[in-house]
């Protein structure tokens, strides 16, 4: 508690319009750690997610997979107990403690019944601050990751996704697979993992999102007792180049596998929430391929029966964003499905969406926001995104307001700018046709 006394006051409460509740109570603790709390007392459960800027985007040059391996090994032994003992301790109370790396960050998530919160927090603090990274566990995990990477070659969506990453972000760390490659993982040393942990697992790069049957005072006290002494290292936090403004050359790549169905990903870099075109592009995405009423779904699936899976998505991340159109169709249907998809993409920029389409998209995006917060896990993920992307704790209200303001002309303008099929790289993973 003492170390956490320099609490920066909860933000934004006063800035929120009347009637709206912020999605979390926020404060920055003395060691630089950001604490977000959403109290939900009806069910005696607590979810604690610690998000660290320690994803694969920070992999050392030439060593893809270090971030992911470091995260995997957090729960494989600490200074106080070996991995299997950790597993037994948390699972004995029906809880879970997992660490998972993505491109931008690592999330260490604890899920426990309220009565077991103290034990859960003890273990969480241990894996964050004192992981032992035993050599034997590293070897074991490397073999598993290599096998998993080999197996993932069976999955056309994984294969296509990796190829698309390379096409969209040439030269940027977003281009390499989060888990690394079979070759790169095999070369990772314990020393690299230790160094990665030292440099990137730091309280001033951590966001702790707590959802559940706990008060803010209680969780601040409990976390303070365990993580208060966790101090940031002297060095500055690592910087990553932005991949936002860069539009790489659009490439076309076809990978042939033993498949009866083709998976097609068309993608290009896009924009994040901080860009004025973002909300119009959210609308454009929804009209194009966001749901069962969308143009792609209607045209390719409902009218032509060419696909089970057909969609578009806009995925903002911390250092970049992507817009992807994905579909799966029988090998013989690729040309036709792609022709239809490209036609719909072009049409978005050529003519205005109808008033009915715009109304539907706005109504859905605004009306469904509460469904983005209907489980503890979803609330925690939204809180972390709000913090990481600087969206503000009043995001649900701002979102409503920004989406509501978008016009058909806005949608057409951003579609012309971001949805021109000529700017999209196309990855096809397919079987041979006769």
């Amino acid at each position, binding site marked *: 508690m003492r170390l956490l006394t320099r609490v920066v006051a909860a933000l934004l409460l006063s800035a929120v319009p009347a009637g709206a509740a912020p999605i979390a109570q926020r404060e920055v603790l003395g060691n630089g750690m950001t604490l977000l709390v959403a109290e939900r007392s009806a069910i005696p459960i607590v979810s604690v997610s610690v998000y660290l800027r320690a994803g694969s985007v920070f992999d050392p040059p030439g060593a893809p997979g270090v971030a992911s391996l470091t995260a995997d090994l957090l729960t494989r032994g600490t200074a106080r107990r070996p991995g*299997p003992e950790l597993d037994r301790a948390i699972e004995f109370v029906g809880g879970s403690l997992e660490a998972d790396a993505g491109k931008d960050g690592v999330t260490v998530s604890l899920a426990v019944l309220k009565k077991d919160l103290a034990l859960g927090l003890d273990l969480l603090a241990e894996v964050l601050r004192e992981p032992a990274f035993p050599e034997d566990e590293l070897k074991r995990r490397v073999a598993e990751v*290599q096998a998993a990477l*080999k197996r993932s070659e069976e999955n056309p969506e994984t294969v296509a996704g990796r190829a698309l990453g390379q096409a969209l972000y040439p030269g940027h760390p977003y281009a390499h697979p989060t888990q690394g490659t079979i070759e790169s993982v095999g070369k990772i040393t314990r020393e690299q993992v230790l160094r990665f942990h030292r440099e990137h697992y730091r309280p001033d790069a951590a966001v702790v999102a707590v959802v559940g049957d706990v008060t803010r005072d209680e969780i601040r006290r409990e976390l303070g007792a365990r993580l208060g002494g966790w101090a940031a290292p002297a060095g500055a936090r690592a910087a990553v180049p932005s991949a936002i403004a860069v539009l790489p050359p659009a490439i076309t790549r076809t990978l042939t596998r033993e498949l009866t169905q083709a998976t097609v990903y068309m993608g290009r870099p896009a924009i994040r929430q901080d860009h004025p075109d973002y909300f119009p592009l959210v609308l454009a995405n929804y009209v194009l391929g966001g749901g*069962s009423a969308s143009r792609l779904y209607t045209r390719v699936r409902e009218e032509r029966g060419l696909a089970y899976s057909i969609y578009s998505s806009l995925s903002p991340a911390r250092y970049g964003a992507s817009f992807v159109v994905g579909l799966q169709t029988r090998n013989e249907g690729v040309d036709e499905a792609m022709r239809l998809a490209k036609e719909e993409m072009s049409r978005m920029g050529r003519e205005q969406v109808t008033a009915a389409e715009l109304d539907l998209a706005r109504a859905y995006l605004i*009306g469904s926001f509460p469904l983005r917060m209907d489980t503890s896990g979803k609330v925690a993920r939204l809180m972390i995104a709000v913090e990481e992307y600087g969206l503000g704790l009043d995001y649900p209200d701002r979102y409503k307001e920004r989406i509501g303001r978008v016009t058909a002309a806005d949608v057409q303008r951003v579609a012309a700018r971001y949805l021109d099929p000529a700017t999209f790289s196309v990855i096809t993973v397919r079987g041979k046709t006769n």
Partner: protein
Amino acid sequence: MRTARLVALSLLAAAIFAAAPAPVTASGHSGEVLEATLDNGLRVLVLEDRRSPIVSVQVWYKVGSRNERPGATGLAHFLEHMMFKGTPTRGKGEFARLVEQNGGQDNAFTAQDVTSYFVNIAADKVDLVLRLEADRMRNLLLDPKEIDSERQVVMEERRTRTEDDPDGLLSEELSAIAFKAHPYRWPIIGWMEEINRINPPELRAFYDTYYVPNNAILAVVGDVKAPDVLARIREVFGGIPRGPTPPAVTAVEPPQIGERRVIVRKAGAQLPIVSIAYHVPNHASPDAPALELLSTILSEGRASRLYRKLVYEKRMALGAGGDYSYASVDPNLFWFYATPLPGHTVEALERALLDEIEVLKSEPVPDEELARAKNQIEASFVWRQDSVHSRASGLVRFEMLGSWRLLDRFVPMIRAVTAADIQRVARAYFPSDKKNVGVLLPAEPPAPAGK
């Protein structure tokens, strides 16, 4: 919404119980659920949950691939797709459009025993959803042109889930040999040839037979006033006539004689898979709680037995687990499965799995392991109250077994299981001469055939 219209394949269906939410104590629920059976037989469960301004509306029909016949497999799932294709008053795509326009999310899945439709939406839109569900319960168009178009979509779904997925392919092949009389032997999505063949009159007959109020359970959980919702349900659904009682499934799987084995060579697969399946009883048996606990002991978490032994200690497997379908309407299979790490053979891994099964028979499960699994099941029951969606599906899953009230009895039944019970059921149901073994091996691509 990406992969709207799900089909739960056999392993997923086997885990049907694993998705069930429920409170721990009887007092947690018993006073709160408002239940009713309408005159037309529709079973209704309403539960108030005021934590968020949302509601989950779910209609479950007691029909799945179990109710199909050879030659027309996949009907239940095909019909699920057609449920989104319109009625005389609401054309195709209207259902999705209306739900989305009101900020809702909808989807559906088909399993061996049930077909489930759900909409999660702002609580003040509950009336709209009730009207939509009542409409498609009885007034489906089933336009032949739409059927032909959707047929292609279902075939694409099968390509994704089975033809091009080694796991899906193997579990389909293993089910097909494990059962010889019972409909659980064919895949939920149906055989490709039959998806291709099914005709409009068959879909119509299947719809008329099973989509009747007396074959459905409607659950509403969320920020609503239960008596008001029930009154509205009476108004909206009350006019739908009761249908004839759907025919019972009479197939009974005869006792297995001898071991059965299938080896699937799949081009494109990167690693082998080994599955072993045994016939076991369902929830109706007093042995069911022990089998449920056993599957948790085997597979839940990194301290679980198959992970600890095969993945961690022996370093033979990339993954390993076991699955039991407690809630299956008819007796089903208990699955063991594992994928070898490169350098280990499927033969060695199969032996290692069988060794673990023998250990279950010969040695009582240690106290700590037993207590851990019980705690895991109990905690998962608490966690599944986290959302209105999982609360609603939990009520229905137990109602399928006889009554939603059974969910209050489940944890006490699990708590009562002893190490001797586990040992007894392992001996009774995992006889070494009555196993079904499926092995998937990566195959070289075939030499190009002449055109």
